């Protein structure tokens, strides 16, 4: 049933920029808010029930499903989307590694993987292959079979840690 919707004011930082919107419907998801109201279409909706991970963003540094988060719930937080991973023209090591290792094909799940992997590396800068597999097991990719995604994350970790001659 369509019931009268409560509207709220929502204010948060997205990729380092503060933003505020009034009259945001309480039911509006963070994903729709980012994609439609902020035009940040890098965050993708793969399942809208929290199973595929394509919509993963960071809320105060922690990975979250933006399809299951209401925009209002993110009020007062700092949000990072795939558009915020690069520093200006300098790509995040994960982004470079994804290209180098052929860790993407259609690219639809890629933003979710990149954001989740960025969270992993900030929690654990030197993960083992199994740790990478476990951390990314909530993200689904139908194209790549994951092998090169895992290789890319390990390569980026090695780069961040200044390890030369990564063996992945």
């Amino acid at each position, binding site marked *: 049933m369509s019931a009268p919707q409560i509207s709220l004011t929502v204010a948060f930082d997205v990729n380092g920029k503060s933003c505020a919107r009034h009259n945001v419907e309480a039911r509006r998801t963070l994903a729709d808010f980012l994609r439609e109201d902020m035009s940040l279409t*890098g965050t993708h909706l793969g399942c809208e*029930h929290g199973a595929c991970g394509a919509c993963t963003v960071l809320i105060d540094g922690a990975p979250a499903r933006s399809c299951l988060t209401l925009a209002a719930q993110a009020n007062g937080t700092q949000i990072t989307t795939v558009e915020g991973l690069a520093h200006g023209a300098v790509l995040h090591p994960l982004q470079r590694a994804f*290209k180098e290792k*052929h860790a993407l094909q259609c*690219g639809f799940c890629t933003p979710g993987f990149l954001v989740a992997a960025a969270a992993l590396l900030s929690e654990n800068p030197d993960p083992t292959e199994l740790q990478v597999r476990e951390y990314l097991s909530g993200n689904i990719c139908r194209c*790549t*079979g*994951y092998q*090169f995604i895992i290789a890319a994350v390990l390569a980026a970790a090695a780069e961040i840690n200044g390890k030369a001659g990564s063996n992945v």
Partner: protein
Amino acid sequence: MLFGTRQTRGEDDRLIQGKGRYVDDIKLPGMLHVALVRSEAARAHVKVDVEAARSAPGVRAVFVATDLPASAKILPDCHPNPVLRNPRGPQVLADGVVRYVGEPIVAIVAESRYLAEDAAELVSVEYNLLPAVVDLERAMSDESRRVHEDLQSNLAARIPVSCGDTDKAFADAACIVRERLQIQRGAGQAMETRGIVAHWDPHAERMVVWNVSQVPFVHRTAIANALQLSENSVQVLNPDVGGGFGYKGLTYVEDLLIPVIARQLEVPIKWIEDRREHLIAAYHERTQLHDMEIATTADGVILGIRGKFLCDAGAYTPWGPVVPLLTAVNIPGPYKVPNYKVECDLVYTNTVPIAPVRGAGRPQACYVSERLLDAVARKLNIDGAELRRRNLIQAHEYPYDVGFISRDGTRRTYDSGNVPALLERALEMIEYDKHKARQKDYAAQGRHIGIGLACCVEDTGLGPFEEVGMTVELDGSVTVRMGTPSQGQGQRTAFAQIVADQLAVPFDKIKVLAGNTDNVRYSIGTFASRAGIVTGSAVLNASKQLRERALKIAGTLLQASPDDLTLEDGGVVRKDGGKLGRAMSLSDIVHTSLGESGAPLPLRDLGPGMSTVASFSPPTNTFATGCHAALVEVDPRTCKVSILKYVAVEDFGTMINPMIVDGQVIGGVGLGIGNAFLEKVVYDDSGQILTGTFMDYLVATTMDVPHVHIDYLATPSPLNPLGMKGAGQGGTIPVPAALSAAVEDALRDYGLRLRHVPFSESDIFAALQTARTGAAA
């Protein structure tokens, strides 16, 4: 040379920064959003009341079947096939009768998706339920209800394929093995669901449609017919597409419905399918039940294979009988099967229609032939690898006449191949002899380790043609226009590699445009592992024409013979290294040959500019082959399967970009692992679909797909100028067969028999119980 190198992809810079543009990213001024009300019943007469929805907030229009023009009521069969005796196209909106859960009944058009979904809940559908036809065998019984009441039975098509004399082969056989082998329903489930944006462009006076199609030209025809427009009044565009896997290569009722709404309302319309809709209403594949037998000599040499199988069509036939037809012609695989007879019945049920999903009937075929061979190996006590050695077509026997007519109407002939070499390489990589020799030791340690093998063929690179347009621009950059869109395969990269070599232009100065029906005049589309071969060869032909033209123009301008010239670093040089009268870049050639505005054309005999259109038509399909080997460990207490090593040895002929091909293989294996263990669409007896979320329909994750060890041995195809074979599906096809064999081998002491995929831990447990009871009885 860029051809054959692991060139990183030109597509990726956008995609890794969140700058991709998928259909749901398209926003047009005044755009309205559609939500669909779908059937909750598998078979019913329905009455619809939409009055409450019409007056809901934000609703601009509501469409039911009677609102559609006669030309847009039923989806036409875009690929008619005479074998299909009783075709039935899907209803664009259900008109009084529904035939599967998920069939669209009402379209709500509203100012936002939220409001459209609110209004959808106000639609009242009264279901007068009828018993559903779900079980494949029961559907073929005389007593069965019929999915289509106007038909005499649920039979959509009967497909016979045969060669030789199977009666004699079986009469003469020393060993006959029969198996009932079942493959359950699965789905493509690309990470991007389907979606459409359509609007009437008043400037160009035509319908512009963005969608996720693998076959935009097919869609253009279907949309033009539905709207009663000429084809030049419809443009179909594909932005970035988030995976295709075959089932986006068909036309769906929504592909007609959304443009019809946009035309009637004269506003831009967007429909984005959600995952639940995708799981219950996008085409599925795979359900087949095979009763097959194999006859061999005492040494295990195949004398014949025969049998029948049923293929579940679902409720309609949007792409005719292509899936079972592919199974029927692929069962002999890379083996010598002198006598073969199979008959398939394509059967209507009250379920989602089926369509090709990556592999397309071939995983079933491979499963049948490999499971039969494993059963023969066991019965005759011959090692599985040795049995395959005795039956594989040998390298010197190619080209090999399989003996019957193939999918494309030509005599099925394997153009080239060397599967025995693939098998030996796979055995070496998996360390077959070592592990086989140690199996007793492993068992003594309480470890249950087994190896499975599977070899396959794949008919790839189907005709009839693809066309490519190519232009050298004034600045010397090159634009390539083609009709086969990408769903992630990296065509922009691969085809630029071909052009770069032919025209001596740097990779990043080549732009490959696809996904726009204005790009070329005619096209078929991206499916059946054909774009690389067919479009790739057309790209080569176009590049060669421009290369030749560049040298001709340069020869005229430099007063040299074109034979003495070649292209290097974006310009013309002398082959002998000698100095030219003046430097001449591709840009100079284009400038000169185009002349100056208002002046006569300088090279009147040669015509203006450096632009061409070329096509390629393969004489028939070329055959890719592969051999996969799996080493698994199974814990008989938990029935948990661990893949210790997975090997894929593939023959895709010559490869443009092995990095991209690696990705195709590994991704294909990932789907195959899902098909073996996880992916199962489930209907209950009333036709309710029980797998409507990703928590129910399971796909492989990082925890399921192991490292895939790949090697390639190439026998270049003689059927195209670059010697290519398609690489899109080979990764998937043999996986269920190889893993079934490996798990059976690991639990051989328990007498485990696997006769269906997917199989879960629970299924292995149940099969072990059956084996135990059987042994006790």
